[in-house]
């Protein structure tokens, strides 16, 4: 809007020219957004359609938008094929992700409560230390961690993927501490008068009120663990111990042309299912969590 268009019209916010211009900018925005959305979603649509194609239909060019008849058998084949061990890998991924959620939520909540409730000489410095580890790149510490877990005899087991989650995550501690800090101190005074121990103040009073914040923590921990590739690549050697990301990557062993793309896409689809379900159930938590912590 040029300055002259608004000059002198200050008393009437919605002048006719202004309104027309607003309508235009809305229409242009809408068209651009439709184009971008189409671009963003079309690869996923292609994933769905490829997962339902027969091997013959894969080779048709130009690529078909929809297969003639959906080949649901591709999905069954993943579980039937004993070589890929897809079912086992799905189980492994669930075990790791659920343990990661339990470990991270419990440990981060404990630590966050400590930082939110007490102020000691060292607490400010220690919290700064927590924050400073948020940016720490995992590759910078992965080699000694790997050597440590290998010395403990945990190579090719799921434990190195699970155990680190029981020591709190800097992001989650930060998020929960912000939440706990908003709780009224009267709550704790009342609890103390009733003779609650400090731990019961945490367990019986704070946690039940922290449901939404903990749900956010749980969701992002689950996604992070579910999608992690680097850690399993370091630790897991045998097919039956693989989690889904490394399992999927290893399925693509025959490069580029010969891989059974319909099966690969079906496997990718099934890998995305828990995330999609989570998103459908708790979309608000996603948005909040991202906005609060900047997690991607």
């Amino acid at each position, binding site marked *: 809007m040029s300055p002259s*268009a*608004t000059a002198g019209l*200050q008393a009437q*916010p919605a002048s006719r020219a202004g309104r027309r211009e607003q309508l235009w*900018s809305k229409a242009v*925005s809408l068209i651009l957004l439709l184009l971008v*959305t189409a671009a*963003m979603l079309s*690869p*996923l649509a*292609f994933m769905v359609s490829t997962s339902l194609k027969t091997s013959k239909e*894969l080779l048709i*060019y*130009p*690529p078909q938008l929809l297969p003639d008849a959906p080949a649901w058998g591709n999905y069954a084949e993943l579980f039937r094929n004993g070589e890929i061990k897809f079912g086992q890998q799905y189980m492994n991924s669930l075990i790791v992700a659920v343990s990661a959620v339990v470990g991270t939520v419990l*440990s981060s909540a404990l*630590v966050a409560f*400590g930082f*939110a409730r*007490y*102020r*000691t000489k060292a607490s400010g410095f220690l919290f700064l230390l*927590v924050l400073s580890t948020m*940016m720490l*790149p*995992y590759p*910078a*510490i992965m*080699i*000694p961690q*790997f*050597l440590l877990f290998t010395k403990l005899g945990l190579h090719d087991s799921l434990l190195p993927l699970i155990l680190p989650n*029981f*020591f*709190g995550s800097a992001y989650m*501690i930060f998020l929960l501490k912000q939440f*706990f800090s908003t709780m*009224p*101190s009267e709550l*704790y005074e009342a609890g103390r008068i009733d003779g609650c121990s*400090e731990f019961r103040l*945490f367990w019986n009073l704070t946690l039940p009120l922290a449901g939404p914040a903990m749900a956010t923590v749980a969701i992002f921990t689950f996604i992070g663990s579910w*999608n992690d*590739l*680097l850690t399993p*690549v370091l630790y897991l050697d045998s097919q039956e111990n693989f989690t889904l*990301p*490394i399992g999927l990557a290893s399925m693509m062993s025959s490069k*580029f042309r010969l891989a059974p*793309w319909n099966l690969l*896409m079906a496997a*990718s689809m099934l*890998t*995305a299912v828990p995330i999609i379900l989570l*998103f459908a159930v708790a*979309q608000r938590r996603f948005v909040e969590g991202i*906005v609060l912590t*900047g*997690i*991607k």
Partner: protein
Amino acid sequence: MKRTIGASQSRAFYAFISPWLIGFAVLTLLPILASLYYSFTDYDVIHAPAWVGLGNFRELFHDEQFWNSISVTLKYTFISVPLTLLLSLLLAILINQKVPFQGFFRTAIYFPSMISGVAMSLLFTWIFNPQAGPFNYVLSLFGMDPIPWLLDERFALWALIVMSFWGMGAGMLIFLAGLQGVPASLLEAARLDGAGRLRSFWHVTLPMISPVFLFQLIVGIIDSFQVFTQAYTITQGGPNYTTWFYVYNIYISAFKNFRYGYASAMAWLLLAAVLLITWFILKASNRFVYYEGSR
């Protein structure tokens, strides 16, 4: 709810934060120090670490693959991060125009960034397939010849950059929240002063969201210094090492060539680079980032 307290409270504090204290000592601090030590040694796990002083760093200096991995990573970072940032800001601005179906657009644009990196990598390997993939088909509709994206050293890194756009949804959400946090009263005041939309965007909205921009810039750069999934899943660093990312290079040195000392030296340089970049951006930002309440 904070209070300053006596010895029993202090004990309770340390009890509550003990999981993090232990984890920090054993899984963060110890590895950082150990990796510093290893970086001055030759270490293959079978034999004890042998002290080589600055040997690893001297070797790195003459290692072509090391410099190549830096140049690949920087090229990817300096193209993908600014483009992704600008695009996600632009999308956030568009959605913030109070268009109809706001919620739908937000969800649809955010959605792909949740899907696992490996699943997206597989998908894009297939999409970029030179024979049967849809990307070349779409290009052919505009009269372009097929491009062997991932198989050609001129295009492979660009294909990965294009792919990174599908992860900009989270950034868009953060910008959108930032835009919605700009007080309407400020925009109204600017309008009453006769500022047009561009000028009020430039002088009001942009300064107000500059901390968000800065934060995303730092996180974006640090993230893309650590690209691994695409190199491991899609290209294995090829063709001809054109997608040989820095972390992939660390991974190969340590876990394929069993040169843990050499790889630790690279890991430490990565840590130093991340610290340096963060410090540099924060320092430079004092000039152009506006923090409400300061000044």
